[in-house]
């Protein structure tokens, strides 16, 4: 897969294409101050997502992974850059300018699943109302057709028999069941693209595996392209064919998941991997080579974002701009002067 910075060469095959996406949030510098600073939450992120592919976006809190996901489904407007989405006629179009019917079509085909199944549902609405709401908004089908479709979707996500769930309220369900409802709500529109933002991080291990398997199964069966956002590399290993590692608004490494985990190239990816505890008391891990913690990218200096914490950075990294995400061989992309 060839993905380059700028307009991707493989764009015509992609389902979704992020082109130099950026989001900057102003931070007020005090009363009556006019010159403002900006948090560069996402800063020049480009990638392609193929139909049916699961791309993982991993990184620590504040790295911009959620903001990127929200921009892809137009819940957050980008400051710069474009999101191209394959429309019904198979052409990539810029979602920023969609209005009316084409926007509605996009809303139907791009869905999002949120992290917290306790917060993402209206407690006063039944499961049927929750899952049928998008159908209602899109004016799809009459009541009995909606009923049919909601029931089908509920059994698809493993809430069987659907009749025993339709008229219950969120508080009557467990966390795992609620997350299944959230997935059903996204799938009831038969989307081609789903952004899943940490859909399993609030769930217990014994429940989590079931949800992970369900999402994998549905991706295979329905050919949905997922952007899977997670902080957990072990979960990404099981969910994603490719991963992109983000640090302070930038993708620092991207490639085949197993490849990246076995042979990380970027020093940040290496550090992140070495920090993950292993469920084996006999295993030993190398001591970590990086220090400090993630800072907010407020008006970052024109140098590598990882410079302050990098164990291998030198004067070149200090004096030159953030390195481009470039091919380091065998399809691996990394943004590092030294790698």
């Amino acid at each position: 897969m060839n993905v380059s910075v700028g307009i991707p060469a493989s764009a015509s095959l992609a389902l979704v294409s992020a082109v130099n996406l950026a989001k900057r949030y102003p931070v007020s510098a005090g009363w009556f101050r006019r010159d403002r600073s900006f948090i560069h939450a996402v800063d020049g992120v480009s990638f392609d997502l193929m139909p049916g592919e699961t791309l993982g976006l991993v990184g620590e809190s504040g790295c911009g992974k959620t903001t990127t996901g929200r921009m892809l489904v137009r819940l957050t407007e980008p400051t710069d850059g474009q999101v191209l989405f394959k429309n019904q006629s198979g052409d990539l179009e810029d979602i920023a300018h969609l209005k009316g019917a084409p926007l509605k079509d996009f809303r139907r085909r791009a869905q999002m699943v949120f992290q917290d199944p306790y917060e993402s549902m209206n407690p006063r609405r039944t499961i049927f109302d929750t899952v049928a709401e998008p159908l209602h908004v899109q004016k799809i089908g009459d009541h009995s057709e909606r009923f049919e479709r909601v029931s089908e979707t509920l059994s698809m996500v493993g809430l069987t028999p659907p009749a025993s769930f339709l008229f219950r309220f969120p508080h009557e369900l467990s966390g795992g069941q609620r997350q299944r409802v959230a997935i059903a709500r996204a799938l009831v529109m038969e989307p081609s693209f789903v952004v899943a933002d940490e859909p399993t991080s609030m769930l217990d291990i014994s429940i989590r595996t079931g949800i992970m398997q369900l999402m994998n199964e549905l991706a295979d069966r329905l050919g949905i392209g997922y952007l899977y956002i997670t902080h957990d590399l072990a979960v990404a290993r099981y969910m994603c064919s490719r991963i992109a590692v983000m640090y302070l608004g930038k993708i620092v490494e991207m490639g085949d998941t197993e490849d990246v985990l076995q042979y990380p190239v970027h020093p940040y990816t290496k550090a992140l991997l070495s920090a993950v505890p292993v469920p084996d008391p006999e295993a030993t891990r190398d001591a970590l080579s990086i220090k400090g913690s993630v800072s907010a990218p407020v008006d970052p200096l024109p140098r590598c974002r990882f410079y302050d914490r990098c164990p291998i950075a030198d004067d070149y990294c200090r004096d030159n701009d953030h390195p481009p995400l470039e091919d380091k061989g065998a399809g691996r992309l990394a943004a590092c002067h030294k790698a």
Partner: protein
Amino acid sequence: MTTDPVLVVEDLKMHYVTRAGTVRAVDGVSFAVARGQSLGLVGESGCGKSSIAMTLLKLLPDNARLVSGSIILNGVDLTTLSEDQMRAHRWDRISMVFQAAMNSLDPVYRVGDQIIEALEAHSASAGRDAMERVRELFDLVSLDPTYIRRYPHEYSGGMRQRAIIAMALACEPDIIIADEPTTALDVIVQDHILREMQAIQRSLNMSMIYISHDMAVIAEVCDVVGVMYAGKLVEFGPTTEVYARPIHPYTKALMSAFPSVRGEKHDLTTLPGEPPDLLDLPAGCAFHPRCAYATDECRTSIPPTVQRGDHWATCWNPVDDLGGE
């Protein structure tokens, strides 16, 4: 490490009385922690692991009832102490580090002053001595001493957790109870803090109870591990033993459901069903509705204890190699 126990918990039962019925949050738990040892309690939400922490510290809400059992810390049974006597023990002999580091610090006081307050309350030291002690503690947990005079909101999440650990160490307790202390932190910060906690625990020869849902963290931090399910310890033993040769099907299922970034990518197995309702526990073994090995006796009778040296589990159908019929 010596084997004289610092803490011995015997048949501890703590129930919550609610309008819907009695919740058996801690239901007959026994274990001992030796000096310098770290015990991990692992389990899923609602298994009672945090309730054990609150019971050991006697920080229980009004609807909680200590039904039976003893908590013997250095020969003193904490269950018999009055609230005033208990207050003297807390921080001094037994202290805690909680998950929500933001809520454990008072936002309107400087962090250093909060630690000094704890020191003075236990007359460990006062005035200039106390300030000196705070400096030592900040050094111990790798916090910049200039932050002594700063407020909690000026700290990052990891720094706040370090400050909480410093506070817990202030009076040199015999045992420290850490309830998911790194769960809200990013993985790199978590790694730093875990390494520091281990180093401190070893250098002070302090005992620790480490509570977590994360099998990987427990594997790294703890010498001994107890697996909890529905208010009971279902398996207990040296960490290496329990992870290499689990006896209880639940422990085995937890391990094979846990994804790892290293090693072979094995298939993750799914545990059917959901954790039980503590108001309405299944008869016999509480795990039987989800257990692949369940037989008739599991559905009706309390499972016996299966002993393998210092490693045990309560199960009718142990899944380790020795457990054949």
